[in-house]
Each structure stands twice: as C-alpha cells, then as structure tokens.
C-alpha cells in the first residue's frame, strides 16, 4: 500500500529531529496518554488528500453545530441555568450513540477502511482533569463555545470570534509554558 504513494511529510524530517520526537514521547509524562497527540499512530503512509475524508466529516459536524444551535451563546446559558433540555439531549444522545458504537467496534473487532485494527487507549486520572476542567468550564460559560463551536461560529460569519480563537491558542501556549510547575 505504502509503495504507490508519494512520500509522507514525516520522511523529510531530519534524523536529529526524529530522534528528539521519539525521546520526547518516552520522557514527557502523560503526553501520549492525555492528549489525542501521537495516539493511534498509523504505520500507513498516505498522500495528503487522504485527509479530505476528515474534512468531509468536519463539514457534517459544522452543519449540525449550526442547525441544532449548538454554537448559540443563548443555548449554553440556558444549559448552565437549567432553563432548557436541548443541550443535555444533544450531549446525552451523542454519548449513548458513541458508547454503543465503541462497544460494537470492540465486540466485532471492526477494522479501519485500510484494514488496520482500531485501538483504544485508557486515559489516566490526574488533577488536571479537575483543575483544568473547571477553568475550561468558566471560559465555556463566558464565550458560550467549547473549542468545536469556536470554529463553527467563525464559519457562520461571527468573524470577531477569531479573537476568541487566538486567545484560546494563547491560553494553550501559556499552559505549555507553565506546565511543569502546575499540579498534575
């Protein structure tokens, strides 16, 4: 499979940097287990346009975000004030459908479309899920948007939300800067 395609960008990275990346994976605590980073590394090398399938899934997600009013600041305020069932219904249904899907994938050992085994990785508990979680929740209550809807609000024409996006990236950067000093 890999032979027919153009080289993956990874292959152009100098060897020194490759070594660094693998050292980082081994040393940096929780990097692999906590984030979506570096998990489920596929051994298959595909041309860039294979990623368009994720663009297509994203488009469906973006349409749902707008049509079910999940990007609405008002719907979030209603949720946090227990004034509407809508968002609880959305999240609850999504989780139930997700649980059934993951259970079916595990039970029938369903493979990817490229024939790879689907892998799951347990998450480790740490204080970050509570401290960081509350901090995120405070921000969510202000902007009325978790990370997905931030992108959807911009797409839907609220261009000022690009400031929220840049600020969120800055927040992530500051977390990265102080990471070693924060309780985990």
């Amino acid at each position, binding site marked *: 499979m890999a032979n027919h395609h153009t080289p993956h*960008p*990874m292959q152009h990275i100098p060897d020194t940097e490759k070594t660094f990346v693998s050292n980082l994976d081994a040393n*940096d605590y929780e990097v692999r287990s906590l984030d*979506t980073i570096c998990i*489920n*590394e596929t051994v298959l090398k595909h041309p860039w346009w294979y*990623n368009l399938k994720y*663009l297509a899934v*994203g*488009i469906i*997600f*973006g349409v749902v*975000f*707008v*049509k079910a009013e999940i*990007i609405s*600041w*008002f*719907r979030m305020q*209603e949720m946090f*004030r227990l*004034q509407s069932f809508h968002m609880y219904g*959305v*999240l609850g*249904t*999504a989780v139930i*459908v*997700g649980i059934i899907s*993951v259970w079916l994938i595990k039970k029938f050992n*369903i493979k*990817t479309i490229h024939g790879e085994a689907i892998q*799951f990785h347990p998450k480790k508990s740490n204080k*970050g*899920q509570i*401290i*960081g*979680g509350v*901090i*995120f929740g*405070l*921000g*969510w*209550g202000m902007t009325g948007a*978790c990370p*997905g809807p*931030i*992108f*959807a609000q911009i*797409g839907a024409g*609220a261009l*000022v939300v690009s*400031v929220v996006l840049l*600020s*969120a990236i800055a*927040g*992530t*950067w*500051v977390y*990265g*800067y102080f990471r070693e000093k924060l309780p985990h």
Partner: protein
Amino acid sequence: MEVVRQPWSWYVAGSVIGLIVPALLILGNKHFGISANFRHACAACFPANIKFFKYDWKKEIWNLFFVAGILVGAFLASQYLANPNDMQIAPALASELEDYGIADTKGLLPSEIFSWESLLSLRGLVLLIGGGFLVGFGTRYAGGCTSGHSIMGLSNLQLPSLIATTSFMAGGFIMANLILPFILKL
C-alpha cells in the same frame, strides 16, 4: 427543505455527533477531539523551545482538516440552510439578559457581545479574550474538551473523562450563575 431549515432537534443532532466517533475510528483510527488543534497551532507557529510544543504536529494534520471542515460546514449551513425565523430562547433568560442591555436575541449570538465594537468595551474584552484564554488554558490542562473527554472519552467509558466532564459543567454553572451577572454589568 422547509424541515431542514428549521432548527434540528436534539436527538437528530446528538445521533449525528455520536456517529462521528465511529466514523473517525473507521476512517483512519482517529480519536474524536478538537482542542488539541490549539496545541498544534502553538507547535506549528510559536513552539518557542517549549517542550510541550516540540513534537511533529504534521502527523496530526488530519485534526486541522477536521476543524477546517467544521468551519466550511458552518458556513454552508448559515448561508444555505439558515433558520428563517428568530431564535426561541427561554423567557426567563431573555428577561434577565434585557436587564444587562442584551436585547438582540434574534440570531444565534447576541450582537451586543459578539461584535467588533463590543471588543472595545471592557465587558466584551473580558468575555471574548478572557473567556477564550480560559478555554484554551483549561482544555489543555484537562487534556481535552467536550469532544475529547465528554463524547470520545465517555463513549469509551473512561472515568477520567467523567471527572473532566463533571468539572466542565461545574465551571460553567459557576460562571453562568455566580460570576457572569457581574461581568455583564461591566
């Protein structure tokens, strides 16, 4: 077409979002998540020799395609499938917001907060820049957001994700009920 233009119900939206979990897994062994893109942006643009941002972000490029899709999908839906009617919001919320000078409840977002002019006011500055900062800082500290923890993590029955989700909601409840009233008065 008329049905599609109306706001979609929670069970339709929830089902489609839930199906994104197996779709990403089956399409390429990808775990549903959004907030990691903030980290990829840092790694790509301002790694600044910080260990946390020194990794091969190009390997995670699928995630950037995924959020680009969200942007495009939201654009398409708002251009071609927009709800022709005003938003229906809870009367209690509408009357409370009116006290804070937020009367534009027609669209998805109140223009009194989500506009460039608002960014010049203290209230808008705190909500948009402060709120965005907390979202970016908090999601990475927690190791995921509503997508990675509340949907993907819970789908895989992960206890840490349940703890994270409870914390997200706690933060949101505290902000909306106890702190936001003071910010909206600014």
